[in-house]
């Protein structure tokens, strides 16, 4: 089954593009970072105070140097992933969570042990393509080395390509260095980070610093925005898309001026604001309108696109969580995404990761893959097969070759969703949460971390200076 979500017509797309160029030329983007301003100035942008205004030619030239795809190298090169045109979407787990929750212990601040557990689940997930150092920020990391220690844990427990940290230029430098050491020169691009614009129409110093460091080192970076329509961007969604596009493009232009050809990913998790709490609504249907438009724009510029995955605002693993995670994953996969962050586990508007939801999101992805995969395969001999089976008199296909040969591949078996009848279900006291809990516990028990050569570990430990 082919799913192709589009929201902008070719004419709309052109208009959004032209409006974006006009916005960047007439009003510009707010930037205070002196070095970044100088880079823009040197390349023909106008700098008026903290406003950088860029002529369309500058923008278009910079955009044309962005690679349409790239390979991200892991510690284990068999785990390398391709991101962009020609590759299937790469999934990353939930990230940046403050809290963690599970069926037995409920919601609580995340710890180092939780980070380790999630890394093991990520390494053992057939859907996750990258090892993400910032899934949660453990409360019990030693002070002063928290971020480096999280990167080290990630490199120890996973050999997938690193999705690293990029909070500012210093963190970016150390993260790139650690990834370089860990991958031992096996590939050109060995760590990917993510930065966010400061809507409306600004980039903060810290983020600009990271953009410049990642670009200078030729490492891929996701440039995203997470504006809140009605608060930090316009309520009219099309105008939000224009503003977002201008913000992301301004960041991408900087990366290309620092180093033409530096790989970048165009990202967007902007959505609407709840007008009574002012909370960001990542489970809202409008998110997919914005994200699908953004995906079309990224394709228009031939830049890989990143969107969100199983996003939900739900606080519990209830129907809301299911509806929101499913529609978001479905539309992300239908709008031609190249990299999905927050594919698994994320809850309550990015605030927490649930172990059980992680497992359930894996099932949602598998369901969507089943629907959008091979589709309905035709048989060369369907007429004979049906005719003979019916004529054989058993009246059933249960023991027929067609069943024996194909049921395993033809029918997707849900790991979490329950298909028993009422009595059995009730007798066994089954719930989706409980089933999912059993699955992740078993996965952790069976987990064997990949090898990390001791000389690499030693070098990495040197980089994580204790205070």
């Amino acid at each position: 089954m082919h799913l192709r979500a589009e929201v902008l017509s070719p004419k709309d797309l052109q208009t959004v593009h032209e409006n974006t160029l006009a916005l960047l030329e007439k009003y510009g983007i707010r930037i205070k970072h002196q070095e970044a301003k100088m880079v823009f100035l040197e390349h023909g942008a106008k700098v008026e105070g903290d406003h950088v205004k860029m002529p369309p030619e500058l923008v278009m030239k910079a955009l044309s140097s962005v690679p349409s795809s790239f390979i991200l190298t892991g510690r284990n090169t068999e785990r390398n992933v391709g991101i962009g045109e020609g590759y299937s979407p790469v999934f990353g787990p939930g990230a940046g969570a403050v809290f963690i929750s599970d069926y037995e212990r409920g919601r609580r601040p995340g710890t180092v042990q939780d980070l380790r557990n999630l890394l093991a689940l990520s390494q053992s997930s057939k859907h996750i393509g990258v090892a993400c150092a910032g899934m949660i920020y453990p409360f019990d990391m030693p002070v002063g080395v928290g971020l480096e220690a999280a990167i080290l844990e990630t490199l120890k427990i996973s050999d997938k390509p690193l999705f690293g940290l990029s909070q500012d230029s210093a963190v970016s430098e150390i993260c790139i260095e650690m990834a370089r050491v860990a991958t031992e020169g096996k590939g050109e691009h060995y760590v990917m980070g993510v930065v966010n614009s400061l809507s409306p129409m600004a980039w903060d110093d810290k983020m600009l610093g990271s953009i410049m460091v990642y670009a200078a080192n030729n490492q891929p970076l996701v440039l995203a925005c997470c504006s809140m329509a009605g608060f930090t961007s316009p309520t009219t969604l099309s105008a939000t898309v224009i503003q977002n596009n201008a913000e992301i493009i301004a960041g991408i232009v900087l990366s290309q001026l620092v180093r033409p050809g530096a790989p970048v990913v165009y990202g967007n998790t902007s959505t609407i604001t709840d007008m009574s709490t002012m909370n960001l609504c990542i489970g809202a249907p409008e998110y997919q309108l914005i994200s699908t438009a953004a995906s079309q724009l990224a394709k228009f510029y031939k830049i890989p696109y990143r969107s969100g995955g199983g996003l939900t605002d739900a606080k519990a693993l209830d129907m809301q969580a299911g509806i929101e995670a499913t529609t978001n994953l479905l539309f992300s996969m239908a709008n031609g995404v190249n990299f999905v962050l927050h594919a698994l586990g994320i809850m309550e508007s990015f605030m927490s990761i649930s172990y059980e939801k992680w497992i359930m999101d894996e099932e949602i992805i598998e369901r969507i893959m089943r629907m959008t995969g091979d589709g309905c395969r035709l048989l060369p001999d369907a007429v004979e097969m049906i005719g003979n089976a019916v004529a054989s008199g058993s009246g059933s296909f249960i023991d027929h070759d067609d069943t024996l040969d194909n049921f395993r591949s033809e029918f997707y078996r849900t790991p979490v969703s329950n298909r028993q009848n009422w009595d059995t279900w009730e007798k066994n006291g089954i719930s989706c949460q409980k089933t999912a809990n059993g699955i992740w516990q078993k996965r952790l028990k069976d987990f064997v971390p990949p090898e990390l050569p001791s000389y690499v570990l030693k070098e990495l430990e040197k980089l994580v200076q204790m205070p």
Partner: protein
Amino acid sequence: MSILNEISQNLQCGKAKVVKELVQKAIDEGISAESILKEGLLDGMGVIGEKFKNDEVYVPDVLIAARAMSAGSELLKPLLASSGVKATGKVVLGTVAGDLHDIGKNLVRMMMEGKGLEVIDLGIDVSAERFVETAVREDAHAICCSALLTTTMGEIKNVIDAAIQAGIRDKVTIMIGGAPVTDSFCKMVGADIYTADAASAADAAVQVCSR
């Protein structure tokens, strides 16, 4: 309809210009500044606040009402000061150092201003020293810190330490909030008040300032 009632009604519709004109008219008619404030402006904000709690109006409605309120109270300020009526209270507000998240903080400001408090908003990425210096200079009742990152929550401790250093810890209430902040964190770090949302932060600040 009395003029005070008219002020309240127009404030509820967010008509800043009309409210300002009516306040001037009321002053000219000789109504005391305190009555205009309490029975006109604050009365209107009270109605809006109640409706907001009941989900009948939304944040943008509250915001434009608060704007109308400040347009009116601008005219009252000098009169209130000369008649010895003290402002409801003064707080210093900001997002802690290293943190850029300001949506929650801005909401807190709106709600506090709606309650008639004077809010000195220092913006984002505010150092502990700036919080404390400003509180000293402005003789503020409270320092209100917003933090949205696990890595910047610790800055709240620095603000508290700076307040101790400056010798104002017993005079200033330290209020904190932000998505990762919890009540137990508040106790652990030695802050005074944690509130989960902007409306309760404003309520708590009013309480603090009226002590």
